[in-house]
């Protein structure tokens, strides 16, 4: 297994691929919450 700390920069870089998904999902969850109110 890769050592997470040694690859921390790459963790951060690859996390950036997931960030747009998180943003879109969060936006949808907030929209749903607003709709329910």
């Amino acid at each position, binding site marked *: 297994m890769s050592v997470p700390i040694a690859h921390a920069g790459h963790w951060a870089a*690859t996390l950036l691929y997931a960030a747009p998904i998180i943003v879109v999902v969060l936006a949808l969850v907030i929209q749903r919450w607003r709709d329910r109110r």
Partner: protein
Amino acid sequence: MIRRSLSTAACALTAAVVAALAAPALASAHGLVGKQDLPIPRWLFAWGATIVLGASFAGLALLWSRPRLQEPRERRVIAVPRVLEPLAGLVGVAVFVLTLYAGLAGAQVDTANLAPTMIFVIVWVGVPFVSVLAGDVFHAFSPWRAIGRASGWVARRIAGGALPAPLAYPERFGRWPAVAGVLAFVWVELVDPNRGDPSHIATLTLIYAAIQLLGMSLYGERAWTANGDGIGGLFALFARLAPLAWREGALWRRPPLSGAPGLPTPPGTVALLIVAIGSTSFDGFSMGSTWLGLAPHLQRAFTALGLSESAGLQVATTLGLLAMILAIGGLYRLGADGVRSVAPGISGGAAARMFAHSLIPIAFAYLAAHYFSLIAYQGQAIVYLASDPLGRGSDLLGTAGVAIDYTWIGATGIWYVQVAALLGGHIAGLVLAHDRALARFADAKVATRSQYWMLAVMVTYTCLGLWLLSAAA
């Protein structure tokens, strides 16, 4: 309760995909990406793609307010001579026999023998590109279909009339035999340790053809080809995106994508597309550090249970492949479940089938993006392999000395093609899903709302695809 469990499972799968994205990439950690010369970091392409998808979604909501693709708008271009189909079948059978002969009798070196390149590059990757441009040409060239039809013709001649009618194809089987065929093919491609052995590949191809012939003899050529032939069935799905269609003895033209909404969705249709997307995803994933770090642990776990090292790795890789297919399927189910937020009366399965055709361009986009470099480079090998199919030093066409040109497109060019393919495929998926939603829901606003979660799925597929390409670069 079941719905809730499905939603929970789908959420868990999404989390798993996001977690996988967050894992470090070995390739980028060890400098293999130096060949690319990009003006911005590769992760920024994922952000850019998300913005483009969001803008496309908004554009569709504002400007595409009535269904435009649901009714086929085809124009007859030209009549196709009847003799063309048997001729194409003859060519298909000749290439098939040559490939088998090369695999069984030729040099057992994967790069020197025609069989591996013909099956894994020209047919598996090349034919989908041709299908998306020129329609379902494989239908005419399919060697097992040609042999099946020719056998039927000969049998009718010998019997002196009509043969007994084939069995009725059981509706509940749907496309599941095709799913099993594609799953078997990708298992050989991605897991089988002997996949580089030409005689092994030729033998498996022969077995596949024999199964197709058996299916056709039982259920008839039409019913089996439509449901049981995984390879031909998948190519036929890709051909639905094409601006050309071959049917009723004529060539027809139509708007691109417009063939997709007419996709019949018997059981197994969604699964066939999900297997195509999931297996391509796993091919990329298996080259990244997440899998390369995890696989030895899984392998050790299985060898501890008494399996050999090779068998342990095969079981681990098989599980990885199945897990990826399930994750891709779970994500799609999440998007389909989102439709039920505006139409609670629809079951999740019905919603998944309703939008199944929107997965066709995504499956092609994944294939095009992941295997573009393979067809761009290894595809050229067919020029010298045609002259020396057995790899024994012959020069039948005078092209045996031709070498692969690795300079015509560089790593940067390939990356841009991959990004364009992924983005184009997912925008096409959004368009098809939006158009179907407009046809299903009378109110355009409701139709747009039904697609919110499908947008999230498209964004996830796109970012996942870019990450996989990035990790495998």
